């Protein structure tokens, strides 16, 4: 089953070659691959919306969608139909051209990222030599669309959302790129396919200290880049109503929504590729492993959304520049050490796992000690004040 896509590709190409010239047959097969990936994205987004609503509901002690179809599975279909049939409203003073273009500028790059994701060793639409750069470059473009949407809406709240989105991206793009660099260093290639191939003996998450740190910084800045909670400041409902997409309704709003979930999935899929060995796994075929890992990481993002409060604006920027940036820079140096000592090749992976878990345990213990000490420091003056008041 593991060479399903290679077999399909060969069979289809053989069939088409029989009736068409060589170049046309190749082009058709590639187009078919693109269509399959786009269909997959649509399916993934629908299931993600359902999963997110269900999981968030459970976190908040609710039931979630349960009316349309079994377990509410068809709720997304119903929502999409509703959005399609809605009236298309453009604000009177909006810049019409920019207003109409903005959702497309958000959606198209989000979909283009899926072209380089290595779903299996034989299933990437395009194995680019600069795959990592391609992903990082395209991941910044949706924010341009968001900024333009906020500006074109001619609405102060939308404009505020747009400015927040711009500042947020400029801040979080730097640590995101720096968080990916250790992986590129360890793999020695920029191709996503090559990076997965380089993890056949040990996943990069296992690299002592470097792996987990790079993964965490990448996930945090990735969540910030796709504007998901707790970094959803550009659309914070309680502060600026809905921010950049406030004036959008119907299908145009649906495009933003689609892009947001496609982005969320591509961040988790890229994280699965870079740190969790992509298609590598046991028993099951590679593409199943890949989608499984990406989904688990997406559920981590849902979990974060369900449990963490939204950051304040200055906290958001301070966190990027004062915490993430130094951490990623130090991590890059550590990655060079790991690479030079060939730790990933020399040490067997269970030992690496033990080392990493040990470091995590040590950090948790140290943090709890510091926290307890701070509590005690705060408690003594309070107790003294209370005693003074009594006597």
């Amino acid at each position: 089953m593991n060479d399903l896509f290679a077999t399909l590709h060969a069979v289809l190409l053989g069939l088409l070659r029989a009736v068409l010239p060589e170049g046309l047959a190749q082009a058709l097969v590639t187009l078919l691959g693109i269509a399959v990936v786009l269909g997959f994205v649509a399916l993934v987004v629908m299931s993600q919306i359902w999963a997110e609503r269900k999981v968030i509901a459970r976190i908040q002690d609710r039931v979630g969608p349960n009316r349309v179809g079994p377990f509410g599975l068809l709720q997304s279909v119903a929502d999409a139909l509703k959005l399609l049939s809605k009236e298309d409203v453009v604000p009177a003073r909006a810049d019409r051209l920019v207003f109409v273009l903005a959702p497309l500028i958000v959606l198209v790059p989000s979909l283009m990222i899926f072209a380089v994701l290595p779903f299996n060793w034989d299933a990437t639409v395009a194995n680019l030599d600069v795959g990592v750069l391609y992903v990082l470059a395209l991941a910044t473009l949706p924010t341009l669309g968001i900024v333009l949407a906020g500006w074109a809406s001619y609405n102060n709240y939308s404009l505020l959302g747009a400015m927040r989105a711009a500042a947020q991206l400029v801040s979080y793009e730097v640590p995101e790129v720096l968080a990916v660099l250790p992986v590129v260093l360890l793999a020695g290639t920029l191709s996503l396919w090559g990076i997965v191939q380089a993890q056949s003996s040990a996943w990069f998450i296992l690299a002592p200290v470097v792996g987990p740190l790079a993964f965490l910084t990448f996930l945090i800045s990735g969540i910030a880049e796709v504007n998901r909670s707790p970094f959803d400041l550009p659309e914070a409902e309680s502060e600026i109503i809905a921010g950049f997409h406030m004036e959008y309704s119907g299908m145009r709003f649906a495009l933003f929504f689609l892009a947001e979930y496609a982005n969320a999935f591509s961040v988790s899929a890229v994280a699965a590729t870079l740190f969790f060995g992509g298609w590598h796994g046991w028993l099951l075929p590679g593409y199943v492993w890949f989608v499984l890992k990406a989904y688990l990481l997406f559920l981590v993002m849902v979990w974060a959304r369900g449990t963490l409060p939204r950051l304040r604006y200055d906290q958001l920027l301070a966190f990027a520049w004062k915490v993430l940036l130094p951490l990623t820079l130090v991590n890059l140096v550590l990655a060079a050490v790991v690479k030079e000592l060939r730790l990933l090749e020399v040490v067997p992976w269970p030992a690496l796992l033990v080392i990493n878990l040990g470091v995590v345990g040590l950090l948790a213990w140290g943090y709890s000690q510091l926290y307890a000490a701070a509590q005690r420091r705060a408690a003594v003056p309070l107790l003294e004040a209370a005693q003074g008041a009594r006597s």
Partner: protein
Amino acid sequence: MTEVVAAGAFYVFALAALVGGLGVVSARHVVRSALFLMLALSSVAAIYVLLSADFVAAVQILIYTGAIMLLLLFAIMLTPQQVELPPFASAGQQVAAGVVAAALLALLVGTVLVTPWPLAATPLDRPTTEAIGQAMLTTFVFPFELASLVLLVGLVGALLLARED
């Protein structure tokens, strides 16, 4: 087949870049200009791809179309809205602008005419990243390190400026 597609793609993207460039200078509103600039920069990235310079193309999108355009838009939005530029600048400015534009045109045309353009028989379908990396860490190591240092100083300086005290 491949040559026809490549030539067609080149003309499409070259035209898009030209339309974008003209749009930047002729659009009525600054944000529209920015939108046209996005078109121009992305088309140039596509032309890089056609020239087999994949690394440069990706960096062009990452830095120019992504980060720089975003900073530009951010700056535009921080400036007061409804800034209508006067249709024509003063006579002195027009003359100066004309001279600079003519000099730039002469320089570019001269460069295009003087440079020998080597033609490859087949498309250069070979990865460039490794070669660029090699060159940066051997032949051009000092300029590269200097540039990195300048960027790092800029980064630290920005942090210093942003400190609230």
